């Protein structure tokens, strides 16, 4: 009897907001333990099925100890006297990539929303545009990256000159607009038919229907789409940085540190952690938007 009453009380001790954070940390710890356990007990040559490697080698080269990666973060990038500590260099690169991804996200979301509105308003537009939107995502990034850079180099409007980081942002937006346009369209057509009919009966125009009915109804679809777009924008930025050779971001660090994989196995992992951090921050931003739109979040759909 006493135990039964105690347990729920204890649960209440942990603040509601802290629980997901606690679970998140627990997940990380579990991952770390799994890494070290496999490294300790796993076969030296990895797990093979036939000739196919299904699990990696456990050598210090292929799977450095987590401590090696962590300690490496606090050493300078190189032996040069002016070298920054690795964690700081990675954080600076994170800020750079995050900034570009944010621009790409904003452009992508704007374009995606505009397309969704257009497609909702005009049936013809949906039939004409939707297949192209889907098709656009089948074009590999490595094909469009040099093109975007080349076209960008020819843009010159008075004082404004296209810079390489804008090409990266544009490529990020190219990946980001897709989930938004699809998600927003689904959301905009989500209201019940009788709600739409009601608006018709009141002789309410399209704009007002949009503002009072369709937009609020779309929030549940839009938020997961925005989160997907944020993550796509980050991935797009990192890949495009490598692709067109932009300096300053995480992508460049991943390429430059890769060469140290043999002699300094902890180093290449630092920018990988950095890109994870950027992704988390980007998703976190969208979470904040979700807080502001809490009122409309009924029956959110998972994308």
């Amino acid at each position, binding site marked *: 009897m006493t135990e039964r009453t105690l347990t729920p009380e204890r649960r209440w001790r942990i603040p509601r907001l802290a629980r997901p954070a606690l679970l998140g940390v627990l997940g990380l710890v579990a991952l770390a333990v799994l890494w070290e356990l496999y490294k300790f007990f796993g076969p030296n040559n990895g797990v093979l099925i036939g000739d196919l490697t299904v699990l990696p080698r456990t050598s210090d*080269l292929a799977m450095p100890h987590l401590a090696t990666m962590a300690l490496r973060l606090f050493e300078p990038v190189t*032996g040069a006297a002016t070298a920054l500590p690795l964690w700081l260099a990675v954080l600076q690169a994170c800020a750079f990539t995050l*900034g570009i991804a*944010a*621009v790409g996200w904003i452009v992508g979301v704007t374009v995606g929303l505009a397309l969704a509105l257009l497609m909702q308003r005009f049936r013809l537009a949906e039939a004409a545009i939707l297949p192209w939107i889907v098709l656009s995502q089948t074009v590999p990034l490595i094909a469009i990256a040099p093109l975007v850079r080349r076209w960008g180099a020819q843009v010159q409007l008075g004082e404004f000159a296209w810079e390489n980081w804008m090409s990266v942002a544009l490529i990020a937006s190219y990946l980001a607009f897709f989930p938004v346009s699809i998600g927003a369209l689904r959301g905009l057509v989500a209201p019940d038919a009788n709600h739409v009919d009601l608006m018709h009966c009141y002789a309410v125009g399209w704009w007002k229907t949009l503002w009072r009915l369709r937009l609020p109804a779309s929030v549940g679809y839009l938020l997961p789409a925005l989160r997907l777009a944020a993550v796509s924008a980050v991935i797009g930025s990192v890949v495009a940085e*490598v692709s067109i050779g932009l300096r*300053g971001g995480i992508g460049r660090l991943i390429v430059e540190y890769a*060469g140290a994989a043999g002699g300094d196995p902890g*180093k290449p992992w630092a920018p990988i952690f950095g890109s994870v951090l950027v992704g988390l921050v980007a998703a976190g931003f969208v979470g904040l*938007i979700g807080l502001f739109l809490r009122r409309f979040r009924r029956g959110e759909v998972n994308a």
Partner: protein
Amino acid sequence: MTHQTRRIRSIAGVAAFALGALALTSCSSGGTPDDSADAGDLTPVTLQLQWVAQAQFAGYYAAVDQGYYEDEGLDVTIAEGGGDIVPQDVLAAGDADYAISWVPKVLGSIEQGANITDVAQIFERSATTQISFADKNIETPADLAGKNVGSWGFGNEWELFAGMQQNDVTLDDITLIQQAFDMSGFLSGDIDAAQAMTYNEYAQVLETINPDTGELYQPDDLNVIDWNDEGTAMLQDAIWADADRLADDADYADTTVKFIKASIKGWIYAAQNPEEAAGIVTAAGSTLGQSHQLWMTNEVSKLIFPSENGVGLIDQDAWDTTVEIAQDTTNETGATIITDDPPATAYSNEYVQQALDELEAEGVDVNGADWEPIEVTLEEGGN
């Protein structure tokens, strides 16, 4: 009423996020300087590299840093390469004035219609080797038969294939393995003989602890097949210019001579001051380790000096060998780089000869016959 204010607040929230993000980018993009404003009467020139800033391009960075380009009236911007940037395409599209690329790679582009010209063959020798641990006993290309042979592909494989072909080793005799950016495939034993540039991947191995000794790997631990010795070396880093503009635009032709002249001075500086040159490249944004950067500077200088006929002059025999290999060597799909002879515009000694003449008139030693490389001690991880 409350609904109204809430909605406004939520809109404000999104706007604040957008503004914050914009502010962030404006800060972070401030790092790309564009100093062309104070260039005065200098001719703006863009050079497209084939990879990111590293000592492989030390001569050009040194020429910028030491003001050699400015002395010639040029304001040179160096554009770094990237994973999907093809320098000869950037040049042919008119987005750069000059480009650095390997001859065999460009020969393919020329056959596809790019009208560009090798105006200075900066690297006289090839840096591509095939390395293996000594206990694998791979000392000649013939020994590659039956082995796991690594290659980066994408145009980096031809010297290897030509060397094998010359020794009657076919692609069916080996297991060709796609090599990554790093040497982990080689170090873990997946690759018996790995492709390695003398100035980069070879050093990466020597910067790694040998688990058997607890010390860094030593040159004695490795066998190196050098394609220069095997006779299948192909010409690598060259300065390429736009052939149409060379023919039609006298100013561009004139600029080309100046650009080559200052670049050669940069390379001479890098060869004579490797520590300073490595520092210049690092200051230009390369994050390679200090000892690795110095090693690269030193090794790249070895590809240039001593120079038989003067830095940059294209040697007819070496050119012919490169073209011959490009026509006769087949890859795993049976294709060759080119099928026809390259056009006469594919290379020209006219501009580099003029640059060399001017340099010699100024008393510059363009052969470096007495030049000696330094001894570089590699540190663990290249740091």
